[in-house]
C-alpha cells in the first residue's frame, strides 16, 4: 500500500526532546523523508546522559523515549556552532519542504538560520517554530518542558485528590505530545495553504497555547460561575460511584452514570443488598453517602483481580477498566486486539514492541515500525547522496569534528 506522501516531502528536523521530534516522527510515519540533525556534543537530550554508564554501554543509544520519538528518521550530525555547518544545513533546507525547530526564539536567528534568512533560499518552505511560551511577550525566553508547560497552561492546578492536598503533575508531560500534535496540524495547514498559493510560511506554535484549550471548559466555568474550579480527584460532580479501587495487586477504575447502572453494578459485584439500600438509591443519595459507598466497593473488590473484575463489568455493559501500568498496557485486550503495539528492530537494543498509531487510514496506512537512527548513522547518505559531497569532503568534516558518529566527549578521549 502507498503512504500518504510517498517520499514526496522532505523535512529537516532540528528539534530535541519530545515535542519537535514527535512532529518529525509523525511526518516520517506519513512517508515523508525526515532528516534529523544533531550535534555530537549537544546531541538530543532525550538520549539521556553519558554519565549514566560507561562508554561501551552506548547509553545514548538505549533511550526508550528517544528510540520511540525518532522512528523512521534519517539521522545526521552537524555542529551548528560552526559556520561551515550552517552553510551545509542551509543547502539542505533549500531542498526541503519543512523545517522543524523547538529552540528558544532567539536561537535560530543567532545561528544564522532565522526565517528571514531561510525564506529567500526556498520560497516554498514551511517552517515551524515551537517556543515554549511564544516568540513574543514578556516571557518569550522562558524555558519549559512538558510538565512545566502543562502547569502554566492550567492543567496541573486541577490535578489532586478529592479530599485536598497538593497538585500533581500528569504522568505524560502533556505539554510535549500536545505540542508535537499541534505542530503537525500546523504544518499540514501550512502545506495546504502552499498548495493554493505556491508560497511557504513561518508558523509559530507556542507550546503552552496548544494546551490551554484542553481546559477551556474550566476557564469558561470560572467566568460563568465566578468560582475557581478545584481538583475533583477520582470523583465526578454528579455520578457515584466513580473511582479507583484496589483490586488484588492492581487497581480497577469503575463508574455508574445512572441509577440503573448502579443497581447492575451492585449485583455484578455481589452486593445485592446494596442495590436496594436507601442510602444509595438515587444519584443524589449516592453522592451524599459517597464515602460509605466507596468503602463498600473497596471491600467488595479488594481481593479480586483488577483485570478479571473490569472484564466482568465490561461484559455486562458497565463502565470499568484496569488501571494499566506500563507493563499491563502491553496486554490490554482492545489495544492488542487492534494490533496497536508494533515490533521494531533497532541496533544496539534489539527488537521490542513500540506504540503504533491512533489513526487508521483505509488506503494510506501510517508506518510506525521503522527504527530511530543511531547518532550520525546516515551522515554518508545525507551529505553524499543528498548534497552530493565527495568522500574527501565528508572525511574533512569528520576530521574537523563538524560531523561524527560518537559523542564528541568520547571521541576526543579516544583520540
Amino acid at each position, binding site marked *: 500500500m502507498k503512504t500518504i506522501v510517498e517520499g514526496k516531502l522532505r523535512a529537516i528536523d532540528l528539534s530535541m526532546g519530545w515535542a519537535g521530534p514527535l512532529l518529525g516522527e509523525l511526518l516520517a510515519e506519513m512517508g515523508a523523508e525526515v532528516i534529523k540533525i544533531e550535534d555530537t556534543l549537544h546531541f538530543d537530550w532525550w538520549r539521556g546522559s553519558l554519565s549514566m554508564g560507561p562508554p561501551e554501554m552506548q547509553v545514548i543509544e538505549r533511550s526508550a523515549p528517544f528510540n520511540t520519538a525518532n522512528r523512521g528518521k534519517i539521522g545526521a550530525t552537524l555542529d551548528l556552532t560552526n559556520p561551515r555547518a550552517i552553510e551545509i544545513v542551509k543547502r539542505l533546507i533549500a531542498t526541503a519542504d519543512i523545517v522543524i525547530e523547538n529552540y528558544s526564539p532567539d536561537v535560530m536567528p543567532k545561528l544564522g538560520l532565522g526565517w528571514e534568512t531561510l525564506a529567500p533560499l526556498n520560497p516554498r518552505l514551511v517552517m515551524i517554530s515551537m517556543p515554549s511560551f511564544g516568540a513574543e511577550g514578556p516571557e518569550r525566553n522562558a524555558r519549559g518542558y512538558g510538565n512545566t508547560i502543562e502547569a502554566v497552561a492550567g492543567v496541573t492546578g486541577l490535578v489532586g485528590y478529592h479530599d485536598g492536598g497538593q497538585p500533581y503533575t500528569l504522568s505524560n508531560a502533556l505539554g510535549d505530545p500536545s505540542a508535537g500534535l499541534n505542530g503537525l496540524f500546523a504544518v499540514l495547514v501550512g502545506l495546504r495553504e502552499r498548495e493554493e498559493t505556491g508560497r511557504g510560511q513561518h508558523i509559530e506554535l507556542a507550546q503552552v497555547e496548544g494546551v490551554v484549550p484542553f481546559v477551556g471548559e474550566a476557564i469558561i466555568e470560572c467566568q460563568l460561575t465566578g468560582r475557581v474550579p478545584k481538583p475533583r480527584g477520582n470523583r465526578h460532580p454528579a455520578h457515584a460511584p466513580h473511582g479507583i479501587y484496589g483490586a488484588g495487586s492492581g487497581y480497577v477504575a469503575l463508574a455508574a452514570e445512572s441509577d440503573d447502572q448502579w443497581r447492575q453494578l451492585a449485583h455484578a459485584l455481589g452486593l445485592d443488598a446494596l442495590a436496594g439500600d436507601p442510602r444509595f438509591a438515587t444519584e443524589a443519595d449516592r453522592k451524599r453517602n459517597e464515602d460509605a459507598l466507596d468503602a463498600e466497593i473497596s471491600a467488595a473488590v479488594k481481593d479480586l483481580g483488577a483485570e478479571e473484575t473490569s472484564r466482568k463489568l465490561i461484559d455486562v455493559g458497565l463502565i470499568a477498566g484496569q488501571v494499566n501500568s506500563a507493563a499491563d498496557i502491553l496486554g490490554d485486550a482492545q489495544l492488542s486486539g487492534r494490533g496497536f503495539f508494533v515490533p521494531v528492530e533497532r541496533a544496539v537494543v534489539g527488537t521490542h514492541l513500540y506504540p503504533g*498509531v491512533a489513526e487508521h*487510514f483505509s488506503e494510506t496506512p501510517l508506518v510506525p515500525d521503522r527504527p530511530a537512527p543511531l547518532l550520525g548513522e546516515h551522515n554518508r547518505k545525507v551529505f553524499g547522496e543528498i548534497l552530493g559531497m565527495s568522500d574527501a569532503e565528508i572525511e574533512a568534516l569528520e576530521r574537523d569534528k563538524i560531523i561524527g558518529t560518537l559523542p564528541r566527549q568520547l571521541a576526543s578521549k579516544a583520540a
Partner: protein
Amino acid sequence: MPYSSLRKTRVVDLTHHIAGPYATRLLAEVGADVIKVEPPWGEGARKAGPHLPSHSNGANGDRGGRFAFLNTNKHGVTLNLKHPRGVELLMRMLEGADLLIENFAPGTLDRLGIESAELLKRFPKLSVVSISNFGADGPDRDARLNDLVLYARGGWTYPVGERDREPLTPPGSLVQYLGGLFGAIAAMQAMLARDLTLGHGQHVDVALLEAAALTMIYEPVGFQYSGVVRERAGKRFAVGPFMIVTLKCRDGYAGLQCVTDKQFESLCDLMGRGELATDARFNTALQRYVNNDALLAIVEEFFLQHDRKWLHREGQARAIPLVGIPNVAELLEWEQLTSRNYFETINDPVLGRIRIPGAPLRMGSHRPEPSRPAPLLGEHNRDILCGRLGVSDRELQDLQAARTV
C-alpha cells in the same frame, strides 16, 4: 481567532460532545467552511455545562459553556437523519465536500444508511473521518467508556498520586481533546494523500484509547528495555536522574523540571548552594538518581521559603524550567498570554461576553480575524439549505413541519 487560510476546504460535521467538535473547531479556526449538522433537538453537548448560575436546572437556553466553546466559527444546520429526506439533503451537502467528520458510536452511520464505503464511491473527492472511543473494531469496540476509564486503560493514571493511596486520575477530558486533535490531523492528512498520491478520498478510523496510549510517555517501551515500571512517586513525576516535581512554596505550588547537568548547576546557584553542584552525592545524573531523596529534601526546604512569583522569575532568569502553578482564574490574567491577545472575547448569544482560548498556531500568512459565536440550533438552516442547496422557502416549511429540519 480564526485564520482565513483553508477557505476552499469544505467540511460536513456530524459530530457531538467533545472529541469530534474539537476536531472541526480546529479546522474552522484555520478557515475551513464547516457545516455542523445536528438533529432538530440539538446535539448532546448543548445541555452540558458549565452553566450560568441562572441556568443550572438544565434550562440553559440553547447551550452551555462546552458547546459555546467548541463550536465557534461553524455554520449550524438541523437535519433528522432518520428521515429519508434528511439523508437526501445530507447527500447534497456532501457534493463538493472534502470531509465528513463524525464521532458516533461505530456502526451508527451504517444503521442510518450512510455507509462510508458508499459515500467514498459516490463522492470521490470526499474523505470520511470517524472518531470513536475504541475504534471501528476490536473486542471492546462497543463497550461503555468515560474519561476515568479512558485515562486508566491508556496508562495515564497508574503513575500519578501518593504511593500509599489509590492512583489519581487526570482531570477533565484531556484525551477527548487530544482525540479531536488527532481527528483534525487525520482530516488534513487525508486531503494531502488525495492531492499528492491517491487522487481520491478515503476513510480514517481514529480511536481515543489509542490516542491516550500514544501520548503516554513511552514507558511500555522502557519497561521492555529495563523491566522497570514507574510507580507512583507522590510529588515527583518519577524517581530518576532528574528533578521533576511539584513543590509547596510560601503562597501555593511551583513546578520544577530540572533535567540537564547545566540546569542542575543553575538550580544550585538559585538556592545559593553552589557547592552542591560538585558534591559527590549529586555531581552526575546517576548520583542524582541514587540520592534523589536527599536532593529532594534540600530543594523542598528551599521552595517552602519563597513565593511562586519569585521562584518563577529567578528560576527563569537562570534558564531553569521552573514555574509558579496558576489556577484557571490566574491563567486568564497571565501577562504572557494577555500580551499576545491569546484569549478572545466573544459575544455569545446566550452566555454573553466570555473569554475563550485562541488558536494553538499563529500563521505567518494571515492575520487572525474575530470569531463567530457557536450557532444557535438551526441558525443557518435557511442560508445553507435554501442558499446553497436550492431548497425553496415552501419546501423548508414542509421540512420543518415534518420535523426533518
